[in-house]
């Protein structure tokens, strides 16, 4: 029996009166993946920060025991503000950040970051070492990437570099912070494989996530946090198969939206949206949209799936007139923007943005925010606008919260405000950009149900953009797969899993299995373990 890579008991973190973590015990065994789960506010991010000695300033950390295996000896890190942390950070504990592109110093060159990280962890930072690290991180041609600025890397490259920097010194403990939220399914699968491999080579991997799928595929041990305490902990097979604590059950049940595709609607007339051969090229990144064809009939809900960088966001920006396409034809409700004018057409197309909090002016109340499009288009009297805004807030389940500002609302509630705002103009087409990515698993189902019902009630068409196949299956009649600026597959939602043939479609399906196939893979994994 090998000793623990890290052994923690009685770990508490407080901010003034507020207790964020309360007596957490954790035993990290080498060669194991340890998944920490919990809803937002359960303290899982704070736990991760505490495990690398980086709890932000006013926070106070105390622990009965906090021992880290550093090479041949154990280092005691339980003393508050231990200066020992700086000597073990990077070298013995590595951190994989949540959003890889954000976690690189944009204005440094790749080689410079690699050299710095290597020198900080005791390497010689020579040219060969830099190339070796980059090659291990998965860059086939290290020299080509070494001289690039970090901001010039694609999302996938940034992820590889971020992970590579963290694991190059072969730390005994690897911490990964909620890596699933910023990554598309395939990148997530790639990261999962890397983490698994780290564990195989003897590291203790800690993965913080609310993604049950990811946890199921990877975890040896699971710790579920609830309100700063350990709700339950143990081998993954026990906890995920037979959860005892209410918090665990809620996480697991809320994890996967149930497929509830409504009956396809027969479109009439011109349709809500018609796109033919849409092209868009940026001088910096080249061709982003390479001839997109897409139709959305009235009342139809169409999903756009694709990896990060496939052109989903650019497509959206073109559809709402924030970006002028370089070629192709775009008709909204049968009208060309050039003829009808964007101001008139924008009334017909409304967007539910990806990050609700960022899209809401923090100084305005929920009611003002929802009435804003009505104000902008001068619809009705002031009183009528307020009444309509109030009714919409009631409809999205925020009755009585009209006077709150975004800071006083949860992220889920903010998303509901954004949805109500998008509905205020009774649009013909609703575009939802990753509508639940910013939300915790338990909240997702509620928002998806709401969107589903509202689309049916308002008899509008919808375009849902997501990298999460489950989300699309829960909402859409039809799913189109976007890859490198082209629609490569366009099938009824119910037929995608059976009839999808494009390699990317298959890859998306493989990394997001259904209940049945997941249970199978669990059994295989269990046998092997």
């Amino acid at each position, binding site marked *: 029996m090998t000793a623990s890579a890290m052994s923690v008991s009685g770990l508490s973190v407080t901010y003034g009166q507020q207790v964020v973590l309360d007596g957490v015990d954790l035993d990290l065994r080498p060669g194991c993946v340890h998944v920490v789960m919990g809803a937002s506010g359960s303290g899982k991010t704070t736990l991760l920060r505490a495990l690398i000695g980086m709890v932000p300033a006013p926070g106070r950390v105390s622990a009965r025991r906090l021992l880290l295996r550093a090479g041949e000896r154990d280092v005691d890190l339980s003393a508050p503000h231990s200066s020992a942390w700086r000597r073990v*950070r990077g*070298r013995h504990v590595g951190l994989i*950040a949540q*959003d890889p592109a954000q976690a690189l110093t944009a204005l440094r060159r790749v080689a410079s970051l690699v050299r710095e990280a290597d020198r900080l962890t005791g390497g010689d930072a020579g040219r060969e070492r830099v190339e070796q690290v980059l090659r291990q991180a998965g860059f086939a041609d290290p020299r080509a990437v070494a001289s690039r600025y970090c901001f010039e890397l694609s999302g996938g490259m940034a992820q590889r570099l971020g992970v590579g*920097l963290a694991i190059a010194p072969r730390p005994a403990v690897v911490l990964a912070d909620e890596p699933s939220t910023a990554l598309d399914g395939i990148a997530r699968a790639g990261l999962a494989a890397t983490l698994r491999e780290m564990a195989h080579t003897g590291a203790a991997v800690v993965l913080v996530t609310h993604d049950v799928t990811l946890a199921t595929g990877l975890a040896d041990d699971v710790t579920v946090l609830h309100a700063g305490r350990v709700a339950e902990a143990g081998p993954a097979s026990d906890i995920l198969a037979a959860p005892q604590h209410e918090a665990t059950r809620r996480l697991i049940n809320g994890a996967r939206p149930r497929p509830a595709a409504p009956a396809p609607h027969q479109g009439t007339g011109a349709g809500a949206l018609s796109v033919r051969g849409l092209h868009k090229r940026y001088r910096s990144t080249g061709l982003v949209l390479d001839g997109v064809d897409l139709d959305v009939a009235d009342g139809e809900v169409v999903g756009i799936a694709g990896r990060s960088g496939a052109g989903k966001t650019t497509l959206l920006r073109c559809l709402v007139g924030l970006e002028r396409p370089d070629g192709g034809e775009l008709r909204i409700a049968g009208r060309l923007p050039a003829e009808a004018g964007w101001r008139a057409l924008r009334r017909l197309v409304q967007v539910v943005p990806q990050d609700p909090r960022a899209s809401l002016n923090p100084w305005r109340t929920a009611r003002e925010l929802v009435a804003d499009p009505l104000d902008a288009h001068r619809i009705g009297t002031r009183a009528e606008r307020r009444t309509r805004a109030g009714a919409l807030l009631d409809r999205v389940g925020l009755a009585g919260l009209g006077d709150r500002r975004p800071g006083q609302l949860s992220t889920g509630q903010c998303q509901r405000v954004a949805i109500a705002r998008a509905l205020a103009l009774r649009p013909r087409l609703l575009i939802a950009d990753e509508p639940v990515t910013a939300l915790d698993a338990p909240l997702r189902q509620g928002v998806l149900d709401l969107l589903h019902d509202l689309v049916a009630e308002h008899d509008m068409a919808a375009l849902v953009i997501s990298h999460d196949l489950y989300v699309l299956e829960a909402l859409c009649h039809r799913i189109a797969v976007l890859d490198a600026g082209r629609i490569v597959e366009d099938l009824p939602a119910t037929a995608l899993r059976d009839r999808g043939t494009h390699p990317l479609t298959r890859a998306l399906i493989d990394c997001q299995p259904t209940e049945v196939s997941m249970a199978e893979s669990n059994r295989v994994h269990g046998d092997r373990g």
Partner: protein
Amino acid sequence: MIARGVVTAAGLLLVASVLVFVLVRAAPGDAVDVEFGESGASALLSSEEEAAARAQRARELGLDRSVPEQYVRWLSRVVRLDLGISFRTGRPVADELVERVPASAALGGAGFLVALAGAWLIGLLSARRPGGLLDHVLRLLSLAATAVPTFLLGSLALRYAAEWIGYPIAGEASWRRLWLPAVVLGVGAMPVVARLLRASLISEYGRPYALAARARGASPARVTFRHVMRPAFTPLLTLAGLTLASLVAASVITEVIFSWPGVSEYAVAAISAKDYPVVQAYLLLVVVVVVVVNRAVDVIQHLLDPRVGQAAEVMA
């Protein structure tokens, strides 16, 4: 990018020159009034004689023509780099400016550097522990520096420096005399940039890339200087460029207080004498300096952060 910059600058100069021309003439009285009033000549002449003499002088100076006509004549000379003849001294304005530009440039440049260096240091120190003692002290000092008018600070500094360390009150422009007005000038422009740098640094420290650098084992100093400083400071250069305009305003006062033989001091004398060519030339010079410096800041910013130019490209 540079070609577009030149066109913008030329347009700006044209607009500024019209404003300058009209504003200078909008004030009551002109050079002829000043001359005849000053010399007391009117007492010796009959009113007809005086009127004739005034008309004669106005003709000499070109002031008898309409304002638009004067402007076109002036502009056509300026584009040939002829700034005209000073009403007061009868010497070419360009010659007189050239004599004084080095002193002003030295003072302005030194003041700008003091402001930037001071702001950098204060911003850095106060961002180290936000809400800490040092942060509070520096905030108070910044507030004080903003609140105290330049003329007061300058006068006090001059008085005590002369009394305690024998600072030479008058004399030629020299390094020995440069530092004090430069500090006075710099202190005025320092607080705004310092406060913004502090805020910018604090927000950058909380960004994922700074945390990731720490997690890889970087010391606080390394995080500050090798990761955070450049993204935090680069956007502030725009602001620093703009503070140059207020620096020019402050340098008028500073040059007068320290009797620094620069352009501003010369312009102040010209304004009271209604010496239009000199005032116009001075204002044009200021506009050129401000435009050029701000353009230079854009270029430096692009060098420090190649994304700056790219973003503009995408927006265009």
